[in-house]
């Protein structure tokens, strides 16, 4: 995909079909009205176009640019800066394993390795059925629930390799999956719409899984003179003794290596990721 093309520049992206466009324009108008300056609506609008197509397409970029009076280059510059905007078609469920230091040490690395093997995909790749996109993610502010897995940005706390494998099996089989903190899963596109600022209208979504998680309450319980309950760690009904240590398991921190090579210098392993119209 990094073939150097010296031919004609790409033609402008096609527009959305008229009905889609009309619907998104109404949404965009609502988003823009929330801000004193229209450009502030760009991040929500990029979430909005992801809710339509599952990733940021050239058509989506053109739409955002048109709504805000920006060039497609300006919009692309922003969309490629942020990690939540996908650049290629991806699965219904974005499964992110935290491999920042604390979660990695507590078992996130092992979970990520086992999921890669179990699903037969690498980082930021999607299963053949289009259900699951696997990626490693950075710290998601849930270190007291480590190791943490996020699916469509809902919390799956206190994971083990076995619970994580069960989780992706359930996702692929189309079984309803519920997080430890968050609402019953909806698809990535539906999640993107919430991120664009449109509240989740599903009954029970706000109150799902109740109040604070168990770790959040530990200090409060101690302060009230209660003894902390033993840590509940086997989510989703999994037996806890399920993680055979892998002697000499590969743990070199190489998972974050650049994945693409610069078009201008294919020999350089550190080149930027190619983008826009690959």
């Amino acid at each position: 995909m990094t073939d150097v093309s010296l031919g004609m520049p790409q033609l402008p992206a096609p527009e959305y079909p008229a009905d889609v466009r009309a619907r998104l324009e109404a949404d965009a108008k609502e988003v823009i009205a929330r801000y004193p300056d229209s450009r502030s609506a760009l991040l929500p609008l990029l979430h909005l176009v992801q809710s339509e197509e599952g990733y940021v397409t050239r058509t989506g970029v053109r739409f955002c640019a048109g709504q805000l009076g920006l060039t497609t280059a300006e919009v692309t510059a922003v969309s490629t800066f942020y990690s939540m905007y996908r650049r290629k078609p991806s699965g219904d469920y974005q499964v992110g394993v935290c491999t920042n230091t604390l979660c990695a040490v507590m078992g996130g690395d092992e979970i990520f390795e086992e999921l890669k093997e179990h699903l037969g995909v690498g980082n930021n790749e999607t299963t053949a059925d289009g259900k699951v996109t696997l990626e490693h993610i950075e710290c998601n502010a849930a270190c007291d629930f480590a190791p943490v897995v996020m699916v469509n940005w809902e919390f799956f706390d206190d994971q083990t390799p076995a619970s994580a494998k069960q989780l992706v099996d359930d996702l692929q089989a189309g079984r309803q999956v519920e997080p430890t903190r968050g609402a019953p899963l909806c698809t990535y596109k539906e999640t993107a719409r919430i991120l664009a600022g449109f509240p989740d209208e599903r009954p029970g979504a706000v109150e799902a899984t109740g109040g604070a998680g168990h770790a959040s309450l530990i200090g409060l319980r101690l302060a009230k003179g209660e003894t902390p309950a033993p840590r509940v760690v086997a989510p989703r009904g999994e037996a806890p003794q399920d993680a055979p240590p892998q002697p000499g398991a590969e743990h070199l921190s190489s998972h974050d290596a650049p994945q693409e090579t610069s078009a201008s210098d294919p020999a350089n392993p550190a080149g930027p990721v190619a983008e826009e119209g690959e």
Partner: protein
Amino acid sequence: MTVATEIEGNGNGSSPEKLLAPVLSAFWDQPNSWTLETYKRHDGYEGLKKALAMAPDDLIAYVKDSGLRGRGGAGFPTGMKWQFIPQGDGKPHYLVVNADESEPGTCKDIPLLFANPHSLIEGMIIACYAIRSSHAFIYLRGEVVPVLRRLHEAVREAYAAGYLGENILGSGLNLEITVHAGAGAYICGEETALLDSLEGRRGQPRLRPPFPAVAGLYACPTVVNNVESIASVPAILTKGKDWFKSMGSEKSPGFTLYSLSGHVTNPGQYEAPLGITLRQLLDMSGGIREGHRLKFWTPGGSSTPMFTEEHLDVALDYEGVGAAGSMLGTKALQCFDETTCVVRAVTRWTEFYAHESCGKCTPCREGTYWLVQLLRDIEAGKGQLSDLDKLNDIADNINGKSFCALGDGAASPIFSSLKYFREEYEQHITGKGCPFDPAKSTVWADRSARTTEVNA
């Protein structure tokens, strides 16, 4: 020296009831703690009534007198930030709440907003009344949809109850709150990068001056405050600044959320007066996981220089941690035991900084890249002893020479780990590999062993 693992064994005889002080977390265990109804049953929106009865300038002075300092890492006095907003300048003023909690190890604002979002909304209304703002923003990191849902709902409830909108509680104050979801970028936790991001741009930090108080969002006077700072304001008004100052120390008064994580028996949130020590927190909560010893820990996230066992009695307030050579930061107490390879930990943090470097300034963009190359080699047993000085040198070229404080943060784990664990780095080099087994560090490492013991 060992860290006691028995609750009875706490060193100074103080009980958790006396050492802890749940305020923001006081009713997280109540049914539907995130709703307006539950919040109102626990003094909710009482602080607002007191605030609206004061003149805005008096309110700013009151918060300043309370001594409340920013809970996002830097510890800047909150009331002073409010005071810096020029009044009568004819420009719109803005309040922007930094809810982009992304510093590795930091996990206090997200549970706070999940369980008690109205404390933030009430604090925001009070702050906006003080700085004379009629439009406020919550910049929430995008990767926490459960929290986004509850913020949407809390804002909706507050509008419906007349706490937001026109003429709030008959005070003449008008206020609109916009909940804004980010899109995944650690740098947006830096306040000027956050403002650029909120303006629909790449999240890159701005040159200062001008400071946000003069030219912030849309070049208008803007206060940027952390979630916990703003959420602490209603309690200060309800219970009084003297109550607040009765906790903590003179320069670091009040209560705060400490987040204990890693190889501890009971990771979680512990709300206590500033100045508690890690030893006290561990003693009351069951200590380091059974059969293990504390090796290193961070007082406030990965960007604060790491500590070791010798720092267990450092008072965890702004001055205490500073005097011991680190920073209080976000009070993210990540604890690692003796099974953890410090080179692995620092390599991973550094990969994070390299990944998240916004690319604006050369020292951070290039420096973090080269740090990662060296660290990966060392971890893989391919390093040379001269690499250690090189690491130090590169970190020195990032620290204090970057555009924003995130560069300094990237240098912290390098400096501090080399200071306390240089031998371990050397071991990787001379032994041509990592002497640690990562399987022993996992949460489940000891489980099968313990089961066997019980059965035997």
